[in-house]
């Protein structure tokens, strides 16, 4: 599993935020568009793409996109 691909899938959950604004070190909660619905979409995307079940707390405990990527890798 590659982080580049994860970032792309992550950015895909946003409608207003340009993909160029999102990289490994982005603090995703600081993005203006961030919402609880996007958090749910990310949990669903991770389940579908990586077969990993994230909890709401996994999202809460991560700051950057890379943090979340590492959580998924550790749960693989």
């Amino acid at each position, binding site marked *: 599993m590659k982080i580049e691909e994860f970032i792309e899938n992550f950015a895909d959950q946003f409608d207003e935020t340009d993909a160029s604004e999102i990289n490994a070190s982005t603090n995703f909660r600081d993005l203006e568009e961030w919402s*609880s*619905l996007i958090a*749910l*979409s990310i*949990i*669903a*995307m991770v*389940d*579908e793409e990586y077969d990993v079940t994230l*909890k*709401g*707390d996994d999202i*809460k405990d991560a700051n950057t996109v890379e943090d979340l990527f590492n959580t998924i890798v550790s749960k693989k």
Partner: protein
Amino acid sequence: MMTTDFNPFSLNGKTILIVGASSGIGQATAIACSKLGANVIALGRNEDRLIETMKSMTNTNDSIHRYIIADILNTEDINKLVSEVPSIDGLMLSAGRGLTLPMQYATRDKFEEIFNINFFSQVELLRLFYKKKKLIRNSSVVLLSSLGGTKIFSGSNGIYGASKAALNSIMKFCAKEFATRKVRVNSICPGMIDTPLIHRGTITEEQLQDDMKNYPLKRYGRPEDVAYLAIYLLSDAASWITGQDFIIDGGLSIK
């Protein structure tokens, strides 16, 4: 003056089958039914948890409680169950699963997973109990539906909500058809009840605490809140009520 014997909500001598009795609302209903004099048949998948339910039950007069381990997704289990169970005066269908998933990820697989337990298995049980005449004249059926999917449409609970809306619809068709045998069918639509079903982890505990503030009565429901409504519907006090969906939500739907 004698007033102590007056209790229109008594379940004395009634045999009541509770499906999903090993936790949450089903468990609370099983325990409360036992305290009102019913002979309870507690049905669930997990024996240890069913035994916990049994331990919390009260024996009044000469009531007899028992439990049955069955997986209602399994056709063999269902057939065995329907032949094993004696005639019943009350049936509470409270097995179910929750799922929070945005619609763009709501694949047919996910729909089937939830509909199989929340809708198809409930309807099949209800159908067989009626067809095999296990539901006797004047008996009462209570389906556990939800506020979600029937009155509120938030929180990415589309699949779950649709399964409960389907259940509410079938409830009315059954109520109409089963009235010929005076069998009553109603449903309960609760708001958020503090049971294992809502603590799945998709939503954080903090988010749940925040959500609670949206309720005019400022708390989530307790399993007993729903159990007492179920008891009313199962009792003869509700003998003129059928085909209705009852909201119990701490006032959320009037906000």
